[in-house]
């Protein structure tokens, strides 16, 4: 080891590492004011180059535009909206929006989802993102209970600027403070493999009790409610079905019957695809995807136990403190347009939120709706959600 060369290499390495540190001046204004550059999560093209350079505009104005050129709209969302291996609407939405508006979209999908932004707010760090797309009622409850006092993580838009807002299905609204505008929906349901059930000599599962019964033993895969919306809403569904006092007992029977809790929707669904079990908790829009990719429909049967299904609602809301409210409003207006809604629904394997979306004619054949829709409102969830989840978690993990 030539000593000099070693020291050179080490020095270069250390210099590279040091480039990752930065110091920026703390403004006296509330830290929610988004500033240009300087914060650590600005996406850059090359790794290790996330350092900040002090930009010319160190101060911010509430309605300022960026230094020059097209405004950038940063949208936070969940991973599979922009980057699923199978299908995701994110790229198409970006291209289409940018072709119609003079603005640029930057998608940002942190692993923790909405909680990531809540964390930053709690730590007093700039959020630096303008919208969150993919809010569920549970997200809102967590966000609202997680901030101090009357502060809110999100804010509302001026709905008069949204041309198609009157066609948003009334039942889909879930935010009592009118911040989140619904943009998509689906139903939590069972997805099962008829071939596999045939081999067992059983028919399709009809009720929740069926799932906990012998013929269906070792039959169900459930995404972990702790880290999956799907699983969490399935849990709420059982609370509704059995009541607060009995749902835990149901789950104990369900698990005794061999149901398995896997760590996320993707883990559960891909295990289902690998024939690990004949049934999985997923979405009733499953056949939209299967049809698109010419799958064997027998493996994509949709089931509604007790003829019920849980409403899965998604909304979009601007972050409080964004200085791009105008572009954000444009975006929400855009995403509510009928043709956009149709395309997004198909690509996201979901249902549109507006009643006048121009869906392909066979869409209805592929999407199943339950006779009775179960749904917990924001008010139902506040104060209960955490208890239900914790009680359930402790019971399942108990030894």
């Amino acid at each position, binding site marked *: 080891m030539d000593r000099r060369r070693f020291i050179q290499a080490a020095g270069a390495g250390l210099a590279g590492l040091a480039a990752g*540190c930065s110091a920026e001046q703390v403004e006296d204004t509330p830290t929610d004011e988004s500033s240009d550059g300087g914060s*650590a999560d600005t996406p850059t093209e090359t790794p290790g180059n996330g350092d900040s350079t002090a930009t010319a505009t160190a101060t911010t104005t509430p309605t300022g535009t960026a230094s020059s050129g097209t405004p950038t709209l940063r949208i936070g969302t969940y991973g599979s909206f922009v980057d699923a291996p199978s299908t995701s609407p994110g790229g198409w939405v970006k291209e289409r929006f940018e072709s119609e508006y003079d603005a640029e979209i930057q998608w940002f999908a942190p692993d923790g989802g909405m909680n990531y932004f809540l964390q930053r707010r709690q730590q007093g760090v700039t959020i630096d993102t303008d919208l969150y797309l993919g809010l569920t009622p549970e997200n809102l409850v967590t966000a609202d209970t997680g901030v101090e006092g009357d502060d809110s993580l999100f804010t509302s838009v001026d709905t008069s600027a949204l041309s198609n807002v009157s066609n948003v299905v009334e039942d889909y609204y879930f935010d009592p403070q009118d911040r989140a505008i619904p943009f998509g929906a689906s139903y939590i349901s069972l997805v099962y493999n008829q071939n596999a059930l045939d081999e067992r000599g059983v028919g399709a599962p009809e009720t929740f009790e069926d799932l906990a019964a012998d013929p269906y033993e070792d039959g169900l895969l459930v995404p972990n409610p*702790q880290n999956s919306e799907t699983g969490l809403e399935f849990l709420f569904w059982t609370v509704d079905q059995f009541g607060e006092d009995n749902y835990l007992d149901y789950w104990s029977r369900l698990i005794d019957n061999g149901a398995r809790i896997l760590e996320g929707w993707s883990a559960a669904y891909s295990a289902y695809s690998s024939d690990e079990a004949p049934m999985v908790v997923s979405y009733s829009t499953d056949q939209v995807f299967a049809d698109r990719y010419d799958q064997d429909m027998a493996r994509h049967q949709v089931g509604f136990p007790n003829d019920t299904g849980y409403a899965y609602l998604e909304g979009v809301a601007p972050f409080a403190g964004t200085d791009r409210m105008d572009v954000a409003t444009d975006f929400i207006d855009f995403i509510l347009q009928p043709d956009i809604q149709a395309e997004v629904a198909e690509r996201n394997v979901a249902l549109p939120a507006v009643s006048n979306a121009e869906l392909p004619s066979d869409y209805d054949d592929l999407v199943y709706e339950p006779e009775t829709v179960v749904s917990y409102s924001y008010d139902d969830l506040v104060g209960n959600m955490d208890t239900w989840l914790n009680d359930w978690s402790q019971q*399942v993990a108990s030894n």
Partner: protein
Amino acid sequence: MERPEVVERVGVPVAAVATLGLLVVMFFYPVGTVLVESIRVDGRFSLEIFTSILTSEFYFGTFAAALSDPAVVVRSFPDYRLGLFGFTAWQALLSTLASVVLGLPGAWILARFEFPGRRTIRSLTALPFVMPTIMVAIGFLATFGREGIVNQALLAVGLPRLELLGTLQIIVLAHAFYDAPLIARITAAAWEGVDAGMPETARSLGASRLRAFRDVTLPQLLPAILTGALLTFIFSFMSFAIVLALGGLQKATIEVWVFHSVEQLEYGTAAGLAVLEIVFSLALTYAYLQYEARQRASSAARPPARKPLFGGVSLDRLAVLGYGAVALVVFVLPIASMVLASVTGAEGFTLRNYAFLVERQTEAYSFQVKPLTAIQNSLVFGAGTLVLAVPMGVLLAVVSTRGFRGRKLVDTLAMAPFAVSGVVVGLGLLRGLVFGFEAFGYRFTVSGALAIVAAHAVGAYPFVTRTVAPALAGIDDSMLESARSLGASRTRVLLDVELPIVVPGILAGMAFAFALSIGEFDSTIILATGGTEYTMPVAMERFRGRRLGPATAMGCVLLAVTAVSFVLIDRLGDGRGLNG
């Protein structure tokens, strides 16, 4: 040429202080910001988090109940509840036993037989340990799942299916996958240090081969075996991702709960559990260091002779064959299944999954995960990890071989990353450094990429130290005294004589650190939030989707990169790593 004397005299102490500083910034401070939440309730100091955990039956089972009502111990006999901690310890114990049982025969084969490719296989024994959990989970699913290879083979010969996923057995097996090869490696190295004359003497006195092994060789192997066993126990105790993936929530360990609490932003509980975990693991780490010190990596006057592996039938060779079959199923099959799954689809053989990788690379948007970027990032982060972890690890190894009071304590503290979960480290780095801290009217932040390198380096440097320290300790004193008698100061002796001699050990540590960095997942996923800092394991997670296909293709790429870089660096050091 003469260097300034002052540089030499202060060389080691200055480097020690710099290392300490780095450790504080990269590890102690970030982890501290998380752990402090365990004693802070509503802004004031309080121990209620600990009391509530310790008295909770969920965490401590019957023991907790007994704290308030000792009679319950008698009443509920023999149905004791383990609680989360009890279960975690129990599965760790089983995992350790399984790893020892599966690892010792491997050690026997490595130490006592000669066969082509022995050196490479020996290098590869460290590989399972660094595989990311997502890869192992997918591999095990493909191997032991309902429609996995094992079951298909069983069905083909008319045997019933094995329902393995979701059981304690599969978790134990997965832990053995990780740790048994390591035990084999460490024990084999110790075995090669046992002088052949000893068992031969025992046999000349009338002991059978087995007796001679039991009475003479085995006692000399015990420190090595215990070292490996303790390491296995610690890692199995701290395990979470593989537990969740293969066992499901029903088989949750403490770490699963820490992770869950962190996700729910319940930092108090997470910190409380993490503190209790750390106390337990540090105690075990201390014990591990004691045993490691007892292993002198001294070369035997005459190492045991090797028998050729291939040859006529003998009892030995039959045993090797039997073990080979088991080893194949446990260690090779999961990886092979993943490779197989990557080229298999509903329609049979297909390259569709790899096509996906290529497509993604060429057509993806900037906000999507691209394979080549993931590879690049992994390699760059790996290099960054080396820049930090190797000097730190070597320096701590030097410190640990100097004698001074409290050395064992310093050693244990330096090994603290063993005892702290990747989740806590990642979270600490995120909140402490990436989100930044305010001082003097400025907010100091660190980029996500740098934080990722820090997380990797923190996880890697203990392995560098544990590889280099025994090598340093094994250098004959007379070598150092000769150098000193020729005029070299303590620092010069270190630079001119000690370090060059342990270069093989340093290289082995480097290989390990690099591979660990590539496979790191728990901290990286928390820190790779900038959108472009994803690594190969993170990409695997992203590509999982509805089918495993794309993820397995990415996994094969990861495997290839890891294996190649690992064997390359490790063979440079002649394959002696982790007390080799």
